[in-house]
């Protein structure tokens, strides 16, 4: 049975290909709570691990709309609040307001997803069980890791480690939580 003191089992591979193969195998074995760690994005993993989340993009859209309308509102209000003849130009000079409106659209369309991405990723989080794993620092260098999380229904210390060893990893270790 999965000990609560465990975070999961971490297998280290040399190449992206090996990781991809391992991930496939783990899925077939029925593991669902899988995570992979790579020095650079390996896009094939998304489909294999069934990773699906478009909220970041939605945040972009929301931010954009917010910026756009906020900008228009601001400019229209300030001119409504201080209506004065400036060079005989119209009070609500939308053509002129368009510029700032565009800038704020871009600004918020950029800030929302950027910070949203960090939030969704639970970052910043300076400490994490994985950092305790001896080999893990290589995850940012040249090694590719597959982790079966301890809260996976099928997780079992011995079986899972045995299964992972079967995938020809460089190493396998249990990560305490």
């Amino acid at each position, binding site marked *: 049975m999965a000990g609560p003191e465990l975070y999961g089992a971490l297998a280290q591979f040399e190449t992206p290909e090996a990781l991809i193969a391992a991930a496939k195998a783990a899925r077939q074995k029925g593991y669902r709570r899988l995570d992979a760690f790579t020095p650079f994005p390996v896009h094939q993993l998304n489909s294999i691990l069934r990773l699906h989340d478009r909220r970041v993009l939605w945040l972009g859209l929301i931010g954009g709309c917010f910026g756009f309308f906020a900008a228009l509102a601001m400019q229209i209000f300030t001119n409504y609040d201080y209506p*004065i*003849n*400036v*060079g*005989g130009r*119209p009070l609500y000079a939308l053509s002129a307001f368009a510029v700032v409106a565009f800038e704020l659209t871009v600004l918020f369309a950029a800030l929302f997803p950027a910070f949203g991405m960090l939030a969704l990723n639970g970052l910043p989080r300076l400490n994490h069980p994985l950092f305790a794993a001896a080999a893990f620092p290589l995850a940012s260098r040249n090694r590719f890791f597959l982790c079966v999380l301890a809260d996976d229904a099928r997780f079992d210390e011995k079986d899972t480690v045995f299964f992972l060893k079967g995938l020809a990893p460089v190493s396998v270790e249990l990560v305490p939580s």
Partner: protein
Amino acid sequence: MIQADDIMRSAAPRFDLAQARAVASNGSLQFWTSIEDLIDQDGFRTWLAAEFPSAAPLLDDSSRRQVLKLMGASLLLAGLTGCQDEAANHALPYVNQPDYAVPGVPRHYATALTFEGYVQPIIAKTIAGRPIKLDGHPDHPATRGGSDAFMQAALFGLYDPERSKSPTYDGIPVTWGAVDQTLATLRERWRNRRGEGLRILTGPTTSPTMIRQMQALAALYPQMRWHRHAPAMPQQQQAALAQAFGRPVTQHLRLDRCAAIVSIDDDLLGPGPHQVMQARAWSTRRGEPTPGQGRSSLYVAEAVPSLTGTVASSRLPCDPPRLGALIQALGATFSLAGWTAPDLSEAESHWIDRAVSDLRQFPGQALLTVGPHLAPSWQKAAFAINEALGNAGETIWYSEPLLVPPSDTETLDALANDIEAGAVDTLIVIDCDPSYTAPTVFDDAAMLDRIPHRLHAGQHADETATRSQWHLPLSHSLEGWSDGRAVDGTYSIIQPAISPLYATRSLHQLLDMLAGQQDPANDAAVRATWRERFGDNFDNRWTDALHRGWVEGKSLQPLALKAKSPPVPLALDAGEDQSLHIVFRPDPTVWDGRFANIAWLQELPKPISKLTWDNAIAVSPALAGARALSNGDMIEVEIGDRKLQGPVWIMPGQAANTVALAFGYGRRNGGEIAKSGGYDAYAIRAGDDVWQARGTLARVEGQYQLATTQQHHRMDGFDFVREVTAAHPTIPKPKDAATLYPEWPPGDHAWAMAIDLDRCIGCNACIAACNVENNVPVVGKDQVVRGREMLWLRVDRYYTGDLGNPRSFFQPVPCMHCEKAPCEMGCPVHATVHSPDGINQMVYNRCIGTRTCSSYCPYKVRRFNWYDYRDTTDAGQAAKNPDVSVRSRGVMEKCTYCTQRIQAARVEADKNNQPLRRDEIVTACQQACPTQAITFGDLNDSGSAVSKLRRSGRHYALLEDLGTRPRTTYLARWNDSDGDVS
């Protein structure tokens, strides 16, 4: 730069009492100048130039501030040296506020200034006892409210912090008590010698009081002699008049009756005591002439470009001898006995033909004038010709002489001879400065020192003061009582607009003291004069005269005189002489030098050259070409054995072989600003009534930095100034400019200004008035050099055509107050916006100084405070108009249509619960303009003057095609020349 500033800093605070007294005791501010010297040490400058080439000019910034410091410092000195502390800001003439003085509510005094002996009638606006604005008296028969630059700037003469503040003996401040004692002994001496050797030197005067007092003195001291010295006022004409009519008379012109004016080198509209009256009269026949009258045509032949020449229908530049030829030709044409026609060049005869035909066409309505500085025989020819044409009594008439003493034997040369002969025991110089304005008359400057007793009375410790044992400070004419006559002969009683700021005495107090009175009252002498003139009913007429601003009653009767036919003129020199003609002229902004210490006038651009802060040696383009001279080159002018050096200024339209020198600069004393620049033309002038001479010119080493406010004068084929002709009397109207912008709802008023270019004579009165009204700062020469002058209203001067004889134009350019203002659109902080009544407003305290407005302004009428230009001296602040905020560093400013006046009028109207009256509001420039070229008013009122002018056929807008819809627009100039419209 850092070093420079350190020196400055270390300089300013080093100011202990001992040194200050030392300074004061030698009479000049040497301690301060020595600081200047320190900065000016070549070593330092070269080091700086080497280290940071572009930092060098910064020094001058510092020295500009240094000048301001000096102005403040000299006030401080006053406190230390004079016995009373009399800073301008203590000038309230009363301790407890009288009930008639309401703080903030201006009081207006009808009074007058004196200028070259004549009075200039003014209304002085005072707030809390401080005069803050002078304007022409609107009801005065002579000037009708017109001003000139001198009148406007007189205010700053009053507040000049370097005025003499207490009597001095050998430069050491003394009390008036000491003066009284000395005078007592001197009077004893004079009485014993029956006035033998007592000489008084003054300018000419029209003041009955002064005349009365001089007569009194003459009675006391029979042998006393009263000499005249007026370096800037020619005497030839008076001499000619006396000869022609057998008695001294004064000539008067009625330009408003002239359909044709022919001027031989007579600057009818130029600066001087007659400018306002004559310009006013001339202008009634220009622009939109009164129905029934035609426009007057004006033919000018002159050696040096003048205001009159600039507005002439036909102008002929010719060297002084050729002027004689022209007069001779006229004499021959109008068959004066023995006058024969000389041979004329093609241009000359063409000009003569046109002039003569016009003179003949309008008998009794024409006028021939000859410059008052030209030879008497030429003058007399003019009198005779005018008589022959029936102009005498119509356009020109003669009266009893106004100026006393009239031109006679009591000249400066007579005085000089007597001094030479040792016949002069006491010389009292009153309000003139012969050792500056006539150094050549006294063979050597030290000659004055041979006179045992020398007294000088004046407003500054000037060159003569430093040569006199006694220097007695005179009051400014705004401080004392006096009287006099305007150029039309009308009497005015001058009442003070402020009590004396310093321990000064008025001219009349001084004369009374010479006659033996102790501490006479300020108004005693004047009252005495008029008590005897008014007789009984004195009080009413006195009060009436003071209220009115002049004494009622016709004062001058035309004399029925016949001119003796003039003798045949001397043969003209054939011109084989290769030397040049050097002509002397008073300076248009500092006159004969008396205004040289007024920074505001120094920075006022000379009408034609647009130079500031210096005088230059004007040469013709031809001569400059021949001698390979360019502006600013140093040259040496030599007359006989006398030489002077100065910078060249190439003057288009100047006669080929004529070199023009201007008076008023190269001062050695009389104030830091006065000493600041230029050359001294008097140094090579062979007498105080010499106006032209033969001389030579040579290039010498060096370049001089001249500060001009306009670098390009050629109109380059643009149509900024437009013209109409009799053939094409209207300007084609532009098709209505379409705009994408919505019309803003019209306000209750729509302010607009129309400027009639056909009336503008470029006299600068408007600029001066604007500067005073709007607290426009003086920035100093170095800033003008960098193109940072602050004038809200500039008078652009253009010429077209051949450099030798171009057509010249003046165009006053204030803010255009565009309805579709590009400037407003550029401001990110709403610091310049449009008021409902159509004024392009500048919100100083909102401005952050992005200068976008100025970048976008097609007319470049905006001015920026690059540094802190505020004048923080007491005197500077005393002169400020409290209704106009003083702009701080980093703020944009510009013409506001005198918005403070508009607001004041609105408030007044609201209080009376009435609408604004038609054309009630008058801008400062409009009020000052002697020719009424400027009209301001409400476009919503179709009956307003400006609306009428906008319907004129001559109406056009500057840079119309930009679609800025200016509210300031122009009326095209009439082109009466036979040439076609440029």
